[in-house]
């Protein structure tokens, strides 16, 4: 996939999100926001993906899952943390089973704020990730 310039495929993983950001990620795919017009497709296979979208924070049990998904993705790749939980743990930061933001486990390129993040800002975050992908591609 890395030869295609501007049609990134997305892999979505839900950490410990409350679903609020997840359904907004899905809403991006539907007719009103329709990210497919940018060539963006949601895939279920990490080996096809260029951008990893993570919603929600990480906990002990899903850290290996997140790491594995990230490692399976081909280079160059970018990570977009969607929502405040993926950024820092948000309202749940003090919970006993929450480790914190996704940044504690894998390198994050773009942070999308919001609780829940709006579709517009998610799309914006993905577009930002495109530039980062471009830089990473040139470095190789």
């Amino acid at each position: 996939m890395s030869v295609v310039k501007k049609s990134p495929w997305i892999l979505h993983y839900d950490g410990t999100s409350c679903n609020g950001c997840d359904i907004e990620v899905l809403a991006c795919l539907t007719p009103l926001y329709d990210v497919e017009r940018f060539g963006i497709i949601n895939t279920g296979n990490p080996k096809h993906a260029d951008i990893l979208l993570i919603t929600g924070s990480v906990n002990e049990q899903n850290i290996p899952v997140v790491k594995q998904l990230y490692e399976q993705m081909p280079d160059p790749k970018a990570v977009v943390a969607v929502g405040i939980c993926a950024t820092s743990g948000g309202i749940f930061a003090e919970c006993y089973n929450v480790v914190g933001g996704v940044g504690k486990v894998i390198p994050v390129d773009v942070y999308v704020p919001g609780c829940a993040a709006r579709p517009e800002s998610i799309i914006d975050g993905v577009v930002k990730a495109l530039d980062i992908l471009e830089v990473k591609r040139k470095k190789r």
Partner: protein
Amino acid sequence: MAEQILKEISANDLLAETLKIKNDGYRLVAVTCTNKDGMELTYSFDKDHELLNLRILTDTETELPSISIIYPYSFLYENEIKELFGVKITGIMPDFNDSLYKIPVKTPFQMND
């Protein structure tokens, strides 16, 4: 609003009381545990929107029988309480042996911080 009945029973009567309730046609709504000055378990049952609660005051030392032989679907509630609160519930079918949620801290609801 329908009425809420709260009945305090001893741990020994749990199975007998539950069986009676089951035979009366109630369904199990939830099992709730509260940890404040000792453990407090509440078994909630429903029939025609009437909520019936059985309450047991216990501690983490006493062994409690599982009601999963009467209400098989109680296993999730009981596994949760066993893992998060450390109440010794015996004979849960199936018993996840404290790995339902697989949390890094042991019995988090016992700590008071």
